C-alpha cells in the first residue's frame, strides 16, 4: 500500500506505484485483447511518414481534433459583452451547459446563460411555447436589461422563426412590448464560433439601429471580435484610445463580467456596453474592427449606415500595432501620443535584445483566422519562420492573405498555409517537417506529447494554464508579453536540452 495520510498522493503519483502498475499489466494482458506492442509501434511509426500524411490530407469527410467551435458559443460571447444582458439560446439545453462550461474552464469565471430547453415535443411542434415561457422565466428570475437570443442547431433544423416567436411572446406578455430582445440565427452547421459572434453582434446593432436617423459625430467605435484574451485586451485598448484622447465606444465588452472580484458577492452582470452606448454608436464617424473575419457581416452592416469601417486582422507586433495606431490617428484626427511612441521604442528595444534567440526559429501555429494573420506577421518581423500556419475556420481567402504575408518577407519563403485543416493534419506536418515551437490553444498539448514540440499557449480555449487571459496581447505592451512568452519557451527548451550532467550541461549556461 502506497497511500499515506502524512503525504497524500493523488493521480499524479499514485498509479505509478508497483501494485497499480502490475494491475494495469494484468488487465491489459488478460482482458483487453489489445494489438501486440510491435504492431502498435509499427503503426505509430507509420503515422509519422509522408505516406500517412498524404492519406491524412486526402480526408474528405472526417474531422479530427478541430480548432473551432460552433456558432452559438460565439453568440453567447457577444451577448455577455452588453451591460446587464442575459444570453438566451433557443434550442436544446445541453448545448448551453456546454457553452457555460467551456467559458468557465477558460476564464475561471461564471458564465450566465439560459436555454429554452426544447425537447422532443418541441422538435415536432416547434419551440414557440419554449420561447414564450422561457423569456418570462428569464426576465423574472434574472432581471436582465436585455435578453440576446441565438439558436442551437436543433432550432435551426426545424426552422423556428425567432423574430416571429419573440413578437408572439411579447403579445402574450412574456416580456413588455418595449423590452429589448435582439436576436440572431446562429446555425451550428455554418461557419464557426466567430460566425456566431458576428451574427449575434449584428443582431444587437440592427435591433438598436434599424429605423433610426444617424447624426454623425466625432466618436469612433471599437469592436474586438471573439477573443480568448478579451479580459486583458479590452482594458489595454481602452488605455490606448484614452491616451489618444479619443472619443470612443467599445461595442461588446465582456472583459468585466469575466473578471469579477471574489469579495463575497456574485455579480451576474458587470460592465459591458450599455444600450445607450449602442444607440449612440450609430452616430460614430467610424468603426474600427480588430478582427475582420470575426466581424464580416457586422462591418458590412455598419458600412451601410454611412460610417467608415476599418477592419484589421488582429494586428500585433511592431508594424501591426503601428498600423492600428495610425488608423486610430487618422480616424480621430489626433496625433499618436508620445507615451505610445515610447512604448513602441521599448518593444523595439526588447526585440533587439533578444532577436538572436528567435531568428530563424521555425514555428507552427493554429487558431482563429485573424489571430493567425496577426501572429504570422509578428513572427516574420522577429525573423522567425512560421512554417505551418493552420486554421480550421479560415478559408481560401484567409489563406491567400497569409500567403501574401509570406511572400512579402524573406522569412516566409519555406512557409505554408493550411485552410480548413485540423490538428490531426498538423500532427502529420510536425512529423514530416518538424519545427522548434508550436503556438496554439490547450489542445496543442497532445501535439506536444506526440511530436515533442514545445507548446506556447495562445488563443482559445486555454484550460490548463491559469490567468494568462487576464493579460493583453494587443498593442506594443501586449506584443511584448507575447515576445516574452516565446522567449521563455525557447529558453526552457534550450535548458531542458542541455541539462544532462557530464554529457550536455556544458551548454547549460547561466547567461543566455
Amino acid at each position, binding site marked *: 500500500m502506497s497511500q499515506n495520510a502524512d503525504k497524500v498522493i493523488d*493521480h499524479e503519483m499514485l498509479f505509478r506505484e508497483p501494485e497499480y502498475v502490475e*494491475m494495469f499489466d494484468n488487465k491489459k494482458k488478460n482482458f483487453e485483447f489489445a494489438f501486440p506492442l510491435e504492431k502498435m509501434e509499427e503503426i505509430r511509426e507509420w503515422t509519422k511518414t509522408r505516406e500517412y500524411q498524404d492519406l491524412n490530407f486526402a480526408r474528405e469527410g472526417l474531422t479530427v481534433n478541430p480548432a473551432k467551435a460552433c456558432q452559438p458559443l460565439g453568440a453567447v460571447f457577444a451577448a455577455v459583452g452588453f451591460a446587464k444582458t442575459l444570453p438566451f439560446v433557443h434550442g436544446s439545453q445541453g448545448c448551453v451547459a456546454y457553452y457555460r462550461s467551456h467559458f468557465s474552464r477558460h476564464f475561471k469565471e461564471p458564465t450566465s446563460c439560459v436555454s429554452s430547453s426544447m425537447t422532443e415535443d418541441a422538435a415536432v411542434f416547434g419551440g414557440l411555447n419554449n420561447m414564450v415561457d422561457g423569456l418570462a*422565466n428569464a426576465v423574472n428570475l*434574472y432581471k436582465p436589461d436585455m435578453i440576446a437570443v441565438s439558436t442551437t442547431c436543433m432550432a435551426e433544423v426545424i426552422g423556428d422563426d425567432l423574430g416571429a416567436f419573440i413578437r408572439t411572446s411579447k403579445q402574450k406578455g412574456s416580456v413588455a412590448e418595449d423590452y429589448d430582445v435582439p436576436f440572431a440565427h446562429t446555425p451550428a452547421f455554418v461557419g464557426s464560433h466567430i460566425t456566431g459572434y458576428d451574427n449575434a453582434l449584428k443582431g444587437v446593432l440592427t435591433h438598436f439601429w434599424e429605423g433610426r436617423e444617424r447624426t454623425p459625430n466625432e466618436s469612433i467605435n471599437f469592436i474586438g471580435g471573439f477573443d480568448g484574451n478579451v479580459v486583458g485586451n479590452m482594458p489595454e485598448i481602452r488605455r490606448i484610445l484614452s491616451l489618444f484622447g479619443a472619443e470612443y465606444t467599445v461595442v461588446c465588452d465582456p472583459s468585466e463580467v469575466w473578471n*469579477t472580484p471574489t469579495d463575497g458577492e456574485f*455579480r451576474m452582470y458587470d460592465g459591458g456596453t450599455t444600450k445607450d452606448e449602442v444607440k449612440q454608436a450609430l452616430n460614430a464617424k467610424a468603426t474600427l474592427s480588430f478582427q475582420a473575419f470575426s466581424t464580416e457581416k457586422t462591418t458590412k452592416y455598419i458600412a451601410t449606415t454611412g460610417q467608415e469601417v476599418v477592419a484589421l486582422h488582429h494586428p500585433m507586433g511592431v508594424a501591426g500595432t503601428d498600423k492600428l495606431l495610425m488608423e486610430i490617428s487618422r480616424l480621430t484626427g489626433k496625433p499618436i501620443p508620445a507615451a505610445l511612441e515610447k512604448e513602441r521604442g521599448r518593444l523595439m528595444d526588447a526585440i533587439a535584445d533578444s532577436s538572436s534567440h528567435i531568428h530563424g526559429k521555425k514555428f507552427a501555429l493554429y487558431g482563429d483566422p485573424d489571430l493567425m494573420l496577426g501572429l504570422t506577421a509578428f513572427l516574420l518581423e522577429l525573423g522567425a519562420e512560421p512554417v505551418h500556419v493552420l486554421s480550421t475556420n479560415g478559408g481560401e481567402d484567409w489563406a491567400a492573405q497569409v500567403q501574401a504575408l509570406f511572400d512579402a518577407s524573406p522569412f516566409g519563403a519555406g512557409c505554408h498555409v493550411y485552410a480548413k485543416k485540423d490538428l490531426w493534419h498538423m500532427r502529420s506536418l510536425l512529423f514530416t517537417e518538424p519545427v522548434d515551437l508550436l503556438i496554439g490553444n490547450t489542445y496543442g498539448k497532445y501535439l506536444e506529447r506526440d511530436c515533442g514540440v514545445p507548446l506556447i499557449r495562445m488563443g482559445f480555449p486555454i484550460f490548463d494554464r491559469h490567468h494568462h487571459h487576464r493579460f493583453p496581447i494587443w498593442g506594443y505592451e501586449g506584443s511584448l508579453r507575447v515576445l516574452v512568452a516565446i522567449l521563455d519557451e525557447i529558453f526552457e527548451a534550450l535548458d531542458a536540452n542541455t541539462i544532462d550532467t557530464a554529457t550536455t550541461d556544458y551548454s547549460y549556461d547561466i547567461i543566455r
Partner: protein
Amino acid sequence: MSLTVEETKVRNKELIDEVLKAYPEKSAKRRAKHLNVHEEGKSDCDVKSNIKSLPGVMTIRGCAYAGSKGVVWGPIKDMIHISHGPVGCGQYSWASRRNYYIGTTGIDTFGTMQFTSDFQEKDIVFGGDKKLEKIMDEIQILFPLNKGITVQSECPIGLIGDDIEAVSKKKSKEYGGKTIVPVRCEGFRGVSQSLGHHIANDAIRDWVFEKTDPDKNKFEATPYDVAIIGDYNIGGDAWSSRILLEEMGLRVIAQWSGDGTIAELENTPKAKLNVLHCYRSMNYISRYMEEKYGIPWVEYNFFGPSKIEASLREIASHFDDRIKEGAERVIAKYKALTDAVVAKYRPRLEGKTVMLFVGGLRPRHVIGAYEDLGMNVVGTGYEFGHNDDYQRTTHYVKDGTLIYDDVTGHEFEKFVEKIQPDLVGSGIKEKYVFQKMGVPFRQMHSWDYSGPYHGYDGFAIFARDMDMAINSPVWALTKAPWKK
C-alpha cells in the same frame, strides 16, 4: 447557527417559499414540486424528478448526447466515437471528463480525441449518410488499430431523417463484421443526460451483446469473475476500486466504461456478479444481463471507509468464504490508513456543513465519506436523478435536509446564500458563482482535477481536498478589512 431539526425544517420551508416567489405563477407551481424538506421515515424525498426543465431558468442539466458520448461510450478507449453532426458538441466534450485510460492515443486508443463529422449546411439539406460512410472508410485507413466505431448522434441527425443504422450495418459487413454502433442520443431526446445513458445502454445490448461472436477473445472463466459497472474512472476512480476487489480475491474481467475496451464489454456476460457503482447510468444494462444471462448485480459505494467496508462485505456475501475472508483482510489492511486519515482531517472538518448538487449518483453516494470526516450534508439534489434515486437517497440524508431536484441557478444561489454552508460540491458552471460569494467549493463531477476519490486510496485524497478547500486561508481574506 446550530438550529434544531424542527427549526431547520421551518427555515428550509421558508426558503423554498422565498425562492419560488421570483417565478411567474405557472412556473412557481411547477418548480414547487421539485423542492422539499426531507422527512425522516418517508420512502422517498417527495420531489418530482426526471421531468422537463423549465425554459429560461438556467438549469444545470446537459443532454442525451452528453449522457451517451460523454458518460457511457466515450471512455471505451479502443473504439472511435464519432460526434455525428455539427462541430460543437464534440468540441465542448473533448477530453473534459477526465476518464483516465492507458494506451497510445491516436494509435491504439482514442479517448482524448475529437472525431466529428463537422456537418455543413449541405449535410443538413441532403442528409449526412454518405458523409458518414466516407468517414468510416477514412477511419479504417487512418486508424487501422481501432476496435470499433460508434456514431454519437447530435441534435440534427434525428431531425433530418438520416439512417445511421443502415450505414453502420453496411459498413460493419464491409469490414468483416467490425463492431459499429449507431447511437440515437440526439440532444433533444429526453430531459437530461439520463435518457442518453439509457439509449447508450440499449445500444450495447443491441449492437454489442447481440452481435458478439462467443469464440472471440476467449479466456478461462473462474468462479470469482466480476465486472465493474458504472465507474467512469474519473481521475482513476475505477483503478482505486479495482485494486480492492482484486485484493479480496475477485477477478475483475471488465470495466464499464472507464479505461474499458470493447473486448471487456463483450466478455462481461461471463461474469458471476456485476458490481454496480453508478446505478443511474448503468442499471439498465445490469438488469438486462440479469434477465438474459442470469448474472446478479449488486450496488456498492466506494466513497469513504464506512461505505467501503459495508460494500466489500456486501459484495463478498455473494461468494464463498475465501472471498468473505478476503474482504475482511482488505478491511483490516487499510484500517491503519483510514484511521490516520480520519485522525488527521476530522478535527479540521468536524461539524462543517456541505451542500451538494451533482448528477445521478454522487448526491447520495458521497454523503458517507463526508460523515466519516465529521461533516454534515445539509442540502442535496440531482441533476438527472429519477424517483428510484430519491428513494435510495433516504438511506443517506438526515431529517430536515433540503432537497432540490434539477435546481436552477436562481434557487441554488439563494439557498447557499441563506444557509451559508462551509462547502458546496457541484460542477464547473457553479464553482465560480459560489467562490465569488466566499463559499469554499469542490467540483464533484471532475474531482476538481484531482482524484481518484473511490476506494481507500481515494478517500485520503478526498479528505485532503475537502480540507484544502474549507481551510484555505483565502476565505478569511475575501472581505477587505476596512469593510468588515
